[in-house]
């Protein structure tokens, strides 16, 4: 009897999943994910005092933008009567990934140089150029 009860609970959970995933994913779902990633990155850039934390915030922002590009380029997510970026969006996303890698390399080199000169990575201490 208990086995049947467990099965019934499983059935109820499964019908809940069916109801929750009934509609397909739309572009707006991806845009919401991109917005959350973007906001997390902005806050990370603004709040962190560690220079590497600021770098990670930049990566998150670029990644959120990439999610939007891929969503608008996706043939799978294209709704009825909607336009699609086609392959352009994916190529732009690739360029963004490459430029993010280049930016991370330079920013890390600057961070290392700053650490060698100041023995810290606290961005609040980088005030040598303050007028």
């Amino acid at each position: 009897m208990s086995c049947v009860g467990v099965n019934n609970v499983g059935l109820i959970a499964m019908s809940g999943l069916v109801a929750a995933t009934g509609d397909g994913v739309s572009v707006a779902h991806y845009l919401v994910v991109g917005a959350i990633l973007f906001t997390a990155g902005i806050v990370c850039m603004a709040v962190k005092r560690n220079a590497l934390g600021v770098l990670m915030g930049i990566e998150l922002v670029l990644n959120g933008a990439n999610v939007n590009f891929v969503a608008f380029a996706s043939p799978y997510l294209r709704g009825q009567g909607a336009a699609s970026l086609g392959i352009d969006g994916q190529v732009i996303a690739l360029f963004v990934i490459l430029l993010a890698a280049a930016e991370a390399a330079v920013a890390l080199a600057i961070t290392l140089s700053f650490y060698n000169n100041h023995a810290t990575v606290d961005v609040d201490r980088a005030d040598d150029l303050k007028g």
Partner: protein
Amino acid sequence: MTGSESMTGLSGCLLLAAINFHTLLFYLFATLACGFAVGVVLADNVVRMALYLVLSLGATAGLFFLAGAEFVGAMQLMIYVGGTLVLLVFGVMLTAQAPFVSLQTSSGDRALAGIVAASLLALLLQAAVSVEVWRRPGLGEVAPPAATPIGTALVGLRVDEPPPASPSGVRSGYLLPFEIVSVHLLVVLVGAAYLARAKRRKTPRAIEVAASAGSVELAVEPRRRTGGATSALTAGGAR
């Protein structure tokens, strides 16, 4: 086996087939990506932040696969997770703070950042759901693999759609941006190697002075250790 059990098993199989696994996986990866992104913001330990960033970027690669952009997803895994994060972790290790200094943000700044984040998020979410055509569920059209069209488009040849019937009749590819990006990458990497090179100096660096000045001074004035870098430099020179 009783009749009710077999009925339960049968309807279970039917329900299992009715679950939209694409949507289910989307919610899984979206939750992981957003949750670990928030974890990057909330974590104070920089190593933990790097780990959360890896997981968030990996979950985003899963989202790319689900959207049908398998080439971009693979590049995300290889370049971001495999390259950038290795770079970041090396940066974390090379700039390791003496015994686990964690740079705390003041609570006032945290509250202000929370308010700004909530406003920005409300604005972006409103913009994301405001357009009706973006909210229509996807038709699920399956496209051929995108690696070949992307590769040919990068060298200037578009094979993904027929050329338009406009008078020019030309669809340009991405040869020029591709060249610009590649030269940019070369210059950037040379510049990064130049910036991060080991420099030979006449005077010892502040970090070496701080190390040789002994732990007594550090224990007395941990906050002003580098603020007085010039005085430490002169002291080191006199020594």
